[in-house]
């Protein structure tokens, strides 16, 4: 390729566009730069104010904490400004006069949520509570408490026109502008499901795009800094709420305080006061210790300097679209362990060495009680029975399941190889149903893709996931597709042929037109078939995988219908084979055995091995049975035994029909009238036909395969009537061979050895 000046300039422009993306902080205009500067100034000012605060002082100029609950009771139209003339900033106590929570909520937290310390034997709590906990959430009230006004600084607003350079000043209240639909700023269901994803924050980056994380917490025996992700929705998943919160975990008391942070609520500075909701008198020690934690976090993460446009936009979005929440959570103690044992369990989970920690009996992380309160929306919710495994233990159990799955794949590969060995001739392969195998193949292929995608999401399970994906991919795209190619090739001459003709197993004798057409069918070679089939395979695979992936985000009801229908359809994989058997028509088992005993080698065995049928069915049903009947399965799938029973019965029915076809002949359920006479290779000839073949005097024809004479039954010549019709075969194209010769040949190719016109399979 020749590169002239214009092309070069074009390439440079394209590269410039590629690489001129905003720098580390995401600023792309002067307006945004000013926005970010405003944000930094705001945080700096508030941090300074926080630094000056001691345990007996109220919040001063801190976003979201300027008003207390009592202020809004006293005067509903109060604005969150600093300083308020009548407000007492020099004291602090745990009541609604100072706090953003109503007295009722505070007393509930003190009495019902947080358990009191046991003086003689302090409770022990797990130091690391990473994991995903699940349970129920219950609405206590959504109209009882007044809504605390929380304004957003106007510099957060996007520019109204291109020439805007400096952001607006002042603040605005969302109360009037909130979108009319109620779910956004309200919780309308009474009972719902909640998942709490806990992750520890021990280390932070100290600069933008830094690659080194530093530990910041010097009081790890007392406090842990957490990130909590709370997702709750009603059962039908019509209304979903998702909150990202920072949290502080009190390891000694098993308490978690989580608060959302956004443009209207800077909760980071509220931890020291609100973690203290215990005694009547605020503990100075706790306050100072928490203040130290916040300071350490602030300094280690270089909080102000590492703010980006992304943070600004996220905070703005969540301020506009979500309520602010404060969550008080009490953990259940693990009193059955000593501190040493807890440490050993923790070490073993972090760095497995085979310590005698007995990980299989580690209890669940259990949230004993919890309260979620939204100050600006006045909503109060209650946690119910929320528990889950430690993350590492969950990973271990998933790993064990994956290993079992790999075993299943390997068994399936072995069974498929046995089956392929069983049907090693085109005649027997042509009895298999292409669609049965396609269904099986589609499931395996999509599993391979799903595993592969999961491998990039779960780095801890990368190795087993990739192995699973590999085993599955080998099974689907090499063995099964190869088999499909064989089946497709052997059935190619059945294309454009009607069902009735297929049942009759022949091209229409008296219709010369179809006969020549069939004779002219060009059977493509394997390479072109494999090209087509691979194309089709990958297309189906990708579309099915995308459909499956997107279905996980659909509402529950539609998702369940989709899931049930898909599972049901994909588990009908023997139906096409039953249909195919009926078309190809095998003899009942008894007559097959008889002909075998007589030494007549006939290609009329059942196409599928029973080992393969039973094994495949079990391998494919086991995971479904596990997921639907074992209520604490790793996929967190709901339990539905009835569906599994129906599904198993359905599969049993398919297998039973296959078995009956094996025993009674594959067409037993068709009425005799519906089965037309098939093409018979064994038929007498007329003298005229024999003349065309250039027969010799003693009414024999030369077999083109073994080059020796074939005695023929000629209708017009009585002396030939001794000849057994079963000893020779006449093809539709009128060529005559020994039975044994042609049958041998037909196990390689279904084409006439003389004129290459297609032969109806036996």
């Amino acid at each position: 390729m020749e590169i002239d000046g214009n092309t070069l300039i074009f390439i440079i422009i394209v590269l410039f566009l590629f690489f001129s993306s905003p720098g580390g902080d995401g600023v792309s205009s002067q307006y945004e730069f000013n926005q970010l500067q405003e944000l930094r100034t705001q945080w700096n000012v508030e941090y300074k104010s926080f630094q000056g605060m001691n345990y007996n002082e109220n919040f001063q100029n801190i976003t979201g904490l300027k008003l207390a609950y009592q202020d809004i009771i006293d005067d509903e139209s109060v604005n969150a400004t600093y300083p308020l003339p009548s407000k007492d900033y020099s004291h602090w106590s745990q009541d609604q006069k100072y706090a953003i929570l109503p007295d009722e909520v505070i007393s509930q937290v003190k009495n019902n949520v947080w358990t009191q310390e046991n003086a003689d034997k302090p409770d022990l709590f797990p130091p690391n509570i990473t994991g995903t906990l699940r349970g129920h959430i219950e609405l206590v009230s959504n109209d009882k408490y007044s809504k605390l006004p929380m304004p957003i600084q106007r510099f957060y607003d996007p520019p109204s026109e291109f020439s805007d350079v400096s952001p607006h000043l002042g603040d605005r209240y969302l109360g009037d502008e909130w979108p009319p639909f109620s779910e956004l700023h309200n919780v309308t269901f009474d009972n719902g499901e909640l998942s709490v994803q806990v992750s520890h924050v021990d280390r932070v980056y100290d600069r933008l795009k830094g690659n080194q994380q530093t530990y910041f917490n010097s009081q790890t025996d007392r406090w842990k800094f957490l990130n909590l992700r709370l997702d709750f929705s009603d059962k039908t998943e019509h209304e979903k709420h998702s909150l990202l919160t920072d949290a502080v975990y009190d390891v000694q008391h098993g308490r978690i305080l989580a608060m959302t942070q956004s443009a209207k609520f800077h909760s980071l500075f509220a931890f020291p006061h609100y973690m203290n909701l215990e005694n009547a008198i605020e503990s100075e020690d706790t306050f100072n210790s928490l203040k130290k934690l916040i300071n350490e976090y602030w300094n280690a993460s270089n909080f102000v300097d590492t703010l980006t446009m992304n943070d600004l936009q996220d905070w703005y979005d969540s301020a506009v679209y979500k309520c602010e929440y404060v969550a008080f959570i009490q953990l259940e103690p693990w009193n059955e362990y000593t501190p040493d044992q807890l440490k050993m369990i923790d070490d073993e989970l972090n760095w497995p060495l085979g310590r005698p920690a007995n990980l299989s009996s580690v209890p669940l992380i259990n949230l004993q009680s919890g309260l979620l309160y939204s100050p600006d929306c006045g909503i109060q919710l209650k946690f119910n029975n929320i528990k889950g495994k430690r993350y590492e233990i969950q990973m271990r159990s998933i790993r064990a399941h994956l290993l079992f799955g790999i075993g299943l794949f390997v068994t399936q590969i072995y069974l498929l190889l046995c089956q392929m060995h069983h049907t090693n001739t085109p005649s027997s392969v042509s009895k298999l149903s292409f669609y049965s195998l396609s269904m099986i193949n589609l499931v395996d292929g999509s599993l391979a893709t799903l595993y592969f995608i999961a491998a990039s999401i779960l780095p801890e399970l990368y190795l087993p996931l990739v192995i699973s994906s590999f085993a599955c991919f080998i099974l689907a795209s090499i063995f099964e597709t190869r088999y499909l190619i064989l089946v497709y090739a052997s059935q190619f001459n059945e294309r454009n042929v009607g069902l009735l003709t297929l049942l009759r197993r022949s091209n229409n004798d008296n219709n010369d037109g179809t006969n020549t057409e069939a004779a002219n069918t060009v059977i493509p070679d394997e390479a072109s078939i494999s090209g087509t089939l691979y194309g089709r395979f990958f297309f189906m695979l990708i579309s099915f995988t995308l459909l499956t992936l997107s279905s996980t985000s659909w509402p529950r009801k539609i998702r369940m219908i989709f899931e049930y229908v898909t599972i049901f359809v994909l588990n009908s994989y023997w139906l096409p084979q039953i249909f195919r058997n009926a078309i190809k028509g095998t003899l009942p088992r008894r007559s097959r055995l008889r002909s075998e005993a007589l030494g007549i080698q006939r290609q009329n065995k059942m196409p599928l091995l029973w080992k393969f049928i039973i094994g495949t069915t079990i391998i494919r049903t086991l995971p479904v049975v596990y997921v639907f009947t074992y209520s604490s399965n790793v996929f967190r799938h709901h339990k539905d035994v009835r569906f599994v029973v129906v599904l198993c019965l359905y599969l049993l029915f398919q297998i039973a029909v296959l078995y009956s076809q094996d025993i009674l002949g594959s067409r037993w359920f068709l009425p005799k009238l519906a089965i037309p006479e098939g093409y018979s290779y064994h038929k007498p000839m007329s003298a005229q036909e024999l003349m065309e073949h250039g027969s010799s005097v003693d009414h024999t024809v030369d077999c083109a395969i073994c080059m020796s004479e074939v005695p023929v039954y000629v209708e017009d010549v009585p002396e030939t009537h001794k000849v057994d019709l079963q000893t020779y075969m006449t093809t539709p194209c009128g060529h005559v061979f020994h039975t044994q010769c042609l049958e041998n040949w037909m196990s390689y190719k279904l084409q006439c050895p003389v004129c290459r016109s297609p032969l109806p399979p036996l």
Partner: protein
Amino acid sequence: MSMETPTGLYQFPVTKLCMVSTVAVAFAASVANCKYIFLARYDPFISEYRQYSRYLLFQLGCVNETDVALIVLLWYQFRNLERFMGSYKYISVLFVALIYTTVSLAGLNLLLNILLPGKIWNSLCTGSLPLILAMFHFYKEYTPQIYEFDILLTQPWSKSINKKQRKWKLNDQFLVNGLVVMLLLNQGFAGIGCGFISWICGIFLDKGLFPGVDRWRLPFIKKLLVTDGNSNPSTEALDGSSQDEDRDRSTDADAGAAHENESFPVDDEAGNDEPARPLGVQFLDTFRR
């Protein structure tokens, strides 16, 4: 008798087993995330947790990927031991050596740590390093050196004739020696210490101080490894020439007995002239065409 051992693993079933299991065990342990069961340290596993099973397991799997590669290469180099002893004797000797090295290493480790104060020798090696070192003695003892060569370390034909020519003498076994040294160094002091003890074990085994090499054979598996010639003449005929030499070469009574009633290789004219197409080849052909 050809000087070179035939390449490939055809008719080296024990070598093949060793190579495959070295890789397979390491791979399986890695996938199942349980590599740590092959770690053996006196402190804390034995002294604190009383996990004596670690003394039995440490030789069976490698923790380190480099060890896997080195050990697989060494097993391949040691295949002429299998040729020399015969498969059945070879696997029996391997088994005996495995037991002796495991017992002596574990026993010495336990004794030293109990009797002597301080932790002089805490960790054992991982992987089948001890077994390899024990067999290394057999290899050096029974493999004749075929050729040697010098590497000149100073400039040749230098003007000062009196200057002594320095050279480094290597022989055809330098690859094995190099691999063993790398294997030893790869695990630090644990590797060197355990390697030395196991090498001594190998010498004792060979000299008869540790009995078992001459008489004892693994029970039950004789049928698998000792083939009688009649079973499959066509496949054996493929490698007929090396079989022929093998027969002359066999010193061991058992291995000799194995080959005694073997028919001479027949010409393969009568057989199928089309080469067998195994399933694997058939699959690959799909993609070739």
